[in-house]
């Protein structure tokens, strides 16, 4: 808290009281919008998740939608895929971002500005654009296949996006490309708050680059690492744009995520809003649980 209310004079106590009430009018529009467009829908999603039926023809169904989830092979596959993306992509991305940031946080480094701009550049694209660019790069007649064929590493085009494991990996590669520079910026900002002399002193004491990284950089950036982990987890659990535009969940649901499945259930088939809401609620629960775990772990260290 850097701003402090001036001590009101005895006479103006009533005035300050009045002014603070005016303050509610300033925050009212935003608070009302967030209540109506965020908290209320969460309640309605829960109520919907207890109903069944197609379109707007809904009737009470108890917790049956939730038990149905455990028997739904597509849902289980979607959860498995989502966690596959999460467990592989988030640590690699944050690791590379941290490494890049600590490399760029070097006073003697040349072309620092150019490196930073180029690595940060992918943030300017929409997720749909980068999905399409990467879909071209890895399509059967795309750049990567043509290169590999020309070099003689493969004898026929490899179906990167229509083979289950490679399709998942390409989606991860696309996310890495889009988001690594974004996270790097957070770390760079955090590093700027660490006194450079700490590193100079460590060097004089004979600490290696690796030791400086693990003993100084990582511990001091812990709060920011925690924040980026929570944000990335939240984002990956909702993964939609890339999957829809690169594989549309295929082959055979191998890349489907919870979000693309919700979209299919609600807007591509006869809408099953009740069941889709139960699915949506599970994302919310996962986000909440993972954030809690991450904060607990972050606190302990």
């Amino acid at each position, binding site marked *: 808290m850097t*701003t402090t209310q001036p001590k009101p004079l005895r006479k103006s106590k009533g005035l300050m009281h009045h002014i603070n009430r005016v*303050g*509610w*009018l*300033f*925050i009212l*529009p*935003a*608070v009302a*919008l*967030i209540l109506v467009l*965020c*908290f*209320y*829908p969460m309640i*309605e999603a829960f109520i*919907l998740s207890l109903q069944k039926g197609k379109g707007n023809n809904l009737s009470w169904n108890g917790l049956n939608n939730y038990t149905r989830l455990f028997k739904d092979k597509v849902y289980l596959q979607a959860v498995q895929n989502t966690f596959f993306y999460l467990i592989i992509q988030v640590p690699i991305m944050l690791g590379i971002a941290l*490494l*890049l940031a600590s*490399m760029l946080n070097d006073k003697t480094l040349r072309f620092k500005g150019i490196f930073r701009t180029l690595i*940060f*550049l992918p*943030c*300017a*694209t*929409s*997720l*749909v*654009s*980068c999905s*399409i*660019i*990467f*879909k*071209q790069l890895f399509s059967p007649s795309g*750049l990567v296949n*043509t290169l590999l064929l020309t070099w003689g590493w493969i004898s026929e085009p490899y179906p990167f996006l229509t083979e289950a494991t490679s399709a998942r990996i390409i989606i991860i590669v696309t996310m890495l*490309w889009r988001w690594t520079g*974004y996270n790097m*910026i*957070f770390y760079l*900002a*955090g590093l700027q708050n660490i006194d450079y002399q700490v590193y100079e002193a460590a060097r*004089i004491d004979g600490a290696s*680059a690796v030791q400086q990284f693990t003993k100084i950089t990582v511990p001091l950036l812990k709060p920011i690492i925690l*924040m980026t982990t929570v944000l990335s987890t*939240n984002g990956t659990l*909702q993964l*939609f*744009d890339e999957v829809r535009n690169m594989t549309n969940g295929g082959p055979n649901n191998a890349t489907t995520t*919870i*979000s693309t499945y*919700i*979209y299919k259930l609600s*807007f591509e088939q006869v809408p099953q*809003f009740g069941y*889709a*809401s139960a699915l*949506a609620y599970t*994302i919310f629960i996962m986000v909440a649980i993972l954030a809690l775990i991450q904060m607990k772990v972050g606190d302990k260290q």
Partner: protein
Amino acid sequence: MSQIRIRRGKLRPARVAKYAFLVLASFLSAFPFYWMLVSATNSNQAIMEMRMFPGANLIENWKTLTAGYALGTAFLNSLRNATVTTVCALFISSLAGYGFVVYRDKYKNLVMSLLMLSMMVPAAATLIPMFRMFSRMGLNNSLLGVMLPSVATAFLIFMFRQGTQSFPDAIIQAARIDGLGELRIFLQMYMPIMKPTYAAAATVTFMNAWNAYLWPLVILQSPDQITMPMLISNTMNVYVVDYGMVMLAVSICTIPTLVLFFALQRSFVEGILGSVK
């Protein structure tokens, strides 16, 4: 100084490795952009043959694109949606961010913490109730419908709240003594002084709105409301994809944000970091 020189001499291989890694990372980050722009000027055939240089097919791609897709409509819709969203979001969120700091009391602090919780609510989880609510209110296929969910976000409010904390309280006191109303203090004193915060918030909000996909896809189903991300997604929904034309569409969708990015890089970074400081 001698310290640095000794270190440089000692760690030469490590330094080379560091530069190599940074060059590789920069190349991998920038190359897909180059490929996108170059491909937009080449024919599908040339792209399959890995042509890495600008070609002469740009006009041909433009003709195919504009003949098959409502490019002008999509571009103008995206521009309209992103601009109006940004203006409204900045006004409402800065009003709240200012309100939370200048009229601070314990109840408002409580409300702010409650708002921060909304950052934990995934958009995917509220998609269906929002869609049903907006349909009931007749907001489908409308500007209001597409922008409303992005107008008040905890992120923006937080960003303005952080920015306002460095705003000198003396200015407000002086203005009050001069008899300026509370709203006019906000409009005439606060807004002009806080330009840098507004620029940062505008850059991030505009880019997010321009690039938004899932919510517009759900709420804007009428063809005359199509946006750029929806259009480029549509160009891929054919049996034989003409990548020259597709890459031109992708370039047209990306160039505005790319230009904005280069012009306002500092604001953009500050905008993203608004929540950390």
